[in-house]
């Protein structure tokens, strides 16, 4: 077994086990901290795919911003444990069947979706220039509309968060 397959199987197995752990935790803080570990492993998977910009963004945005925001809200509301009425007790046969159907459809559809079309960004090109530089060139030439839409998408929830959570209690 070669070294890349060994490393990938470690990261894949760790991701699956960690996501199972995340879903079954009772304590919210514990769940968020396991999610932090899971995101670090997923960023390791991105490194295998020559997407070092996304490995960095995964650490900065997901692990650094979103999870910290979640921990901040959990500590602000001071909710520690879930009560007795939940924790996978509502797992019923139709739900499991539905999830298996979704998994099967995803697995089959994704296998079929791989076309043999090869674009211009080969591994040599990505290694010569860097991933971030090429992504920036794509963003400022052919994909400039998604960049503008991303700005709007990030602007609207800022207003929403201020309007929703910034309300004073005496109003």
């Amino acid at each position, binding site marked *: 077994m070669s070294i890349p397959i060994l490393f990938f199987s470690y990261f894949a197995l760790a991701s*699956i086990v960690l996501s199972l752990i995340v879903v079954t935790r009772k304590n919210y803080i514990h769940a968020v901290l396991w*999610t932090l570990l*899971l995101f670090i492993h997923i960023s390791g998977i991105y490194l295998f795919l020559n997407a070092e910009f*996304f490995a960095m963004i995964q650490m900065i945005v997901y692990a650094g911003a*979103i999870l910290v925001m979640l921990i901040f809200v959990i500590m602000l509301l001071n909710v520690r444990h*879930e009560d007795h009425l939940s924790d*996978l007790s*509502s797992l019923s046969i139709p739900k499991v069947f539905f999830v298996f159907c979704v998994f099967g459809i995803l*697995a089959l559809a994704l296998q079929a979706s791989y076309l043999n079309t090869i674009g211009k960004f080969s*591994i040599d090109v990505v290694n010569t220039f860097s991933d971030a530089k090429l992504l920036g060139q794509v963003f400022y030439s052919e994909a400039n509309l998604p960049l503008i839409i991303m700005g709007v998408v990030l602007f609207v929830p800022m207003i929403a968060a201020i309007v929703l959570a910034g309300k004073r209690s005496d109003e």
Partner: protein
Amino acid sequence: MVPLNAYLILAAIIFAIGLIGFMTRRSIIMMLLCIELMLNAVNITLISLSHYMQDFMGQVIALLIIANAGAGMATGLALLINAYRLKKTVKIDLFRNLRG
């Protein structure tokens, strides 16, 4: 060289785990966390396809998904704070009266 199907199966497994967590956990915080899990699975799919098809549009869409995840998380947490003010709990079962 790891085959592409390994990445896709891994993403489908993580998506299924996130989906089953989203449907069974009854607290808004855990549901938000499971949404993040599913979005990460989609990102793995897009970036692996982008690598194997040698096209950068997959990474562009993955960056859009990350922005959407941040936006959804901010709005969801603002709603969570409002819901906690209303009922002093984060259980989704106790918000049945919000049904139309």
